[in-house]
């Protein structure tokens, strides 16, 4: 019996998360990074994806393609932020591991240990199932371990994710090939459900003349052998057939094996090539010679050995309906002398592990239903590329999650689950009017090692972000749809102040104020100025900040604090490390007399925010804004300065000294200038405040 669950409605996601097959809370981890909370960022990553280390390196990052920042300058480098998080939380990640003792009394077998299989295993282990992974190879990871070259994904980076998954209690049977060492039937006897996640592990070859010659290498086999330390002997000239990512991987791998001339021939034009554009560009930097719009006609051989390739010009790859239907100009040919040819024109599943009695096949493919992930046999599911066809790692991971859901449902109810159709509402593009007013901040790209250097070996070519780079890049996130909103229409007097202070022309007032989520850039100026105190910020609201402030003070002995006691509101965007982003200890506050409150742009501080600390016992409030002209939000500096002046006058009326509320600016960066500013703040307030300090 099959049940159909209703359409799955996601809350409106930011476009980055919506584009991510596993809907990683991209915006959330960018925020966590900007606040120096890398651990929280990792938690957010792991919530959606057990392979953050892998994805931090090789994900094709569809999130970035949809990032609305592109309307301003360029997308946020989300992949590199992810990589930064993973590489800076390694200890934490190990410490947070916990083994789940299976508690459901049911056992699930996963055949194949690629990203889909291991994701399914991970989820099912978390759900309390005894999970066993069958892997024919000695190493887990599937394509990640064998086909993705090490210069893109070093083994240690893969193992970080795999070790984490195994730590849950997932049992791995490596070197165990189904159909040879154990049959599917046997597995089914001892397991309550099976997930087939064997991927597409065989390269397809072209049936052209000469294709059986010595020196014609199937792409996956080639990459697999290299990855496992058995590179085939290669000549001076190697040609790769194919225009996909595996082709590019094969070409760059050949280059690293010392081949002086590596050619890549594909039917597609440069623009049509299915490989990621950045991969193609990097390959060209490494001297790969790409022959676009050429199809193989015949492999030329000498004494049964490859001697060259005859190519014919491809005039069209896709027909009017966009289907793959190449047309050739047979008259236009060329011949290239090469020593080896690597075929990377596509992959297929190796289904030899099952026989037709065990599992239904159809024209050499596994029969399966993409809506339920089920196969012909009850309790046997399929996921990953064997189910979906060729795809990316993150798509396989997403499919692995779905498989775990389907299995869990089956094991709990005996029914097949029709996976809900996802309906994701997301934001439109950032309106050009708003984009043109946002401050451009150049994107930080990963540094790649020099092409000459990097083709010498299989060392990783990409350098990670350092902390400063990561913080700066994280700040570029526009925090889409996390901006201002009216708390209650009743509070709004329609005074237009929000519309008048909004630097981006976003806030409008009809009967009441409206800040369209897809336009608001979350500067917080309207919230700070709203006379009805009726605008809330979904993120970066100062109420939460004040709550934290109260909590911090509650845990501190007022009488132990060094006087004068300064509460310093600091623009967290000026930090280059997390020294000042991490919470202060009680002792530090007490002994320094400085309590830092990190604010993402101090321009959002309301007059009340500036005055209230005095109620909490502060002798002085210092506002430390960003460097001159560095503010992300046009007008924020001016509004803040005026608000400070207003609050100073107000405090003076209360009987406080002018210096009780001070405005300072960061010089260079936080670490370089804040300690000096704090010293100066104390000096300015010091003379009498010691006497009149709160008891």
């Amino acid at each position: 019996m099959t049940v159909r669950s209703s359409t799955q409605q996601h809350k409106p996601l930011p476009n980055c998360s919506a584009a991510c097959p596993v809907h990683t809370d991209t915006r959330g981890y960018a925020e966590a990074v900007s606040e120096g909370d890398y651990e929280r960022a990792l938690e957010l990553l792991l919530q959606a994806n057990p392979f953050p280390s892998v994805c931090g390196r090789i994900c094709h990052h569809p999130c970035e393609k949809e990032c609305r920042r592109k309307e301003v300058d360029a997308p946020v480098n989300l992949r590199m932020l992810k990589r930064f998080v993973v590489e800076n939380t390694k200890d934490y990640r190990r410490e947070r591991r916990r083994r789940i003792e299976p508690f459901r009394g049911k056992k699930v077998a996963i055949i194949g240990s690629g990203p889909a299989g291991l994701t399914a295993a991970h989820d099912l282990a978390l759900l309390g199932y005894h999970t066993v992974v069958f892997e024919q190879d000695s190493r887990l990871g599937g394509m990640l371990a064998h086909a993705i070259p090490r210069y893109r994904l070093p083994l240690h980076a893969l193992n970080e994710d795999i070790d984490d998954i195994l730590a849950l209690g997932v049992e791995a049977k490596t070197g165990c090939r189904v159909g040879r060492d154990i049959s599917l039937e046997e597995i089914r006897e001892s397991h309550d459900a099976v997930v087939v996640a064997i991927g597409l592990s065989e390269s397809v070859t072209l049936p052209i003349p000469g294709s059986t010659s010595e020196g014609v290498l199937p792409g996956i086999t080639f990459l697999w052998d290299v990855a496992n330390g058995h590179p085939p002997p290669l000549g001076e000239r190697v040609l790769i057939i194919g225009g996909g990512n595996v082709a590019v991987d094969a070409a760059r791998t050949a280059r690293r094996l010392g081949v002086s001339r590596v050619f890549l021939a594909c039917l597609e034009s440069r623009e049509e090539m299915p490989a990621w554009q950045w991969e193609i560009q990097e390959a060209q930097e490494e001297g790969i010679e790409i022959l676009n719009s050429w199809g193989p006609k015949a492999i030329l051989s000498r004494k049964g050995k490859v001697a060259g390739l005859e190519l014919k010009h491809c005039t069209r790859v896709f027909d009017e309906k966009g289907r793959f239907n190449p047309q050739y100009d047979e008259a236009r040919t060329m011949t290239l002398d090469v020593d080896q040819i690597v075929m990377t024109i596509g992959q297929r599943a190796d289904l030899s592990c099952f026989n037709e009695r065990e599992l239904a096949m159809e024209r050499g493919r596994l029969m399966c239903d993409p809506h339920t992930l089920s196969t012909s046999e009850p309790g046997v599911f399929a996921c990953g590329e064997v189910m979906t066809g060729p795809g990316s790692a993150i798509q396989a991971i997403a499919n692995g999650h779905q498989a775990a859901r389907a299995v869990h449902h089956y094991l709990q109810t005996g029914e097949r689950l029709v996976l809900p159709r996802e309906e994701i509402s997301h934001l439109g593009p950032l309106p050009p009017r708003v984009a043109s007013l946002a401050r451009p901040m150049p994107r930080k790209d990963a540094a790649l090692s020099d092409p000459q250097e990097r083709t010498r070996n299989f060392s990783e070519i990409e350098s990670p972000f350092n902390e400063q780079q990561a913080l700066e890049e994280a700040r570029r996130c526009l925090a889409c749809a996390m901006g201002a909103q009216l708390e209650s229409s009743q509070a709004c007097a329609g005074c237009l102040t929000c519309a008048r202070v909004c630097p981006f022309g976003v806030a409008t007032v009809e009967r009441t104020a409206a800040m369209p989520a897809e336009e608001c850039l979350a500067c917080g100026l309207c919230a700070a100025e709203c006379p009805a105190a009726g605008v809330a910020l979904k993120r970066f609201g100062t109420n939460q900040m004040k709550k934290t402030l109260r909590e911090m003070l509650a845990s501190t002995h007022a009488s132990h604090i060094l006087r004068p006691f300064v509460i310093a509101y600091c623009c967290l965007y000026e930090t280059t490390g997390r020294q000042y982003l991490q919470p202060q200890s009680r002792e530090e506050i007490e002994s320094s007399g400085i309590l830092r409150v990190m604010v993402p742009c101090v321009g959002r501080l309301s007059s009340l925010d500036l005055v209230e600390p005095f109620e909490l016992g502060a002798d002085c409030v210092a506002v430390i804004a960003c460097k001159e002209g560095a503010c992300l939000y046009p007008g924020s500096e001016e509004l803040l300065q005026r608000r400070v002046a207003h609050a100073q006058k107000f405090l003076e009326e209360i009987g406080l000294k002018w210096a009780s509320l001070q405005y300072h600016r960061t010089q260079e960066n936080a670490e370089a200038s804040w300690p000096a500013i704090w010293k100066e703040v104390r000096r300015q307030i010091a003379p009498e405040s010691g006497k009149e300090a709160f008891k």
Partner: protein
Amino acid sequence: MIVADQKPLHEVKEFVETHQKILVAGCGTCVTVCLSGGAAEARLLASGLRIAFQRAHHPKTIEDDTVLRQCDEEFVLPLLEKVKGEGFDAVITLACGVGVNFLADRLGAIPVFPGVNTTFYGAVMEPGLWAEMCSGCGECITHLTGGICPIARCSKRLFNGPCGGSEKGRCEVDPLNTPCVWQLIYDRMKELGRLHELRNIIPAKNWRPALDGGVRHTVRERIYRLEYKNR
């Protein structure tokens, strides 16, 4: 809209010196719009007063609450209940003078103090600048002056043209902030093609409908003291 300015904090502080539990009452309409007495200002004033009394070693309980309008019984009622029910012994209202009176009439033995100075009926000329536009004289004459009121907007309430202090379109009393309203009227009447009407002498005004005629009230018969409501 009614415009009001905040009273200096020390003045407000003196009002409540002898009280212990004080409610700062904001008003959600006019004074919110003119940034002098809405919820944000009520919170700020309450905080400021707490700090001031704390520093004077006489800490007091000071809370704030804001209602939509302090000039309607229905909106004010919860405020009155709060004051009486929670034992407040004084109220500072940031509403205009109307709110002060309205509360005073209803608070019995509990004193109410003004937190703002009510200034005029005005409009926002540009963000942050409010200007007087009407003086509530009770008998509008703007049909004679192109819709621009010389009573509210001429420093000398002249009815028949600009005085000798009109220079470059500004009023001599406050050239920086005040246009000469007769220049405005002149320009507007010219635009309307009605300049010739300004040759007529506007006779002395009847000030009786204005405050000069005594305290005013208005009855709207169609909903005033409905009988079925009193049955």
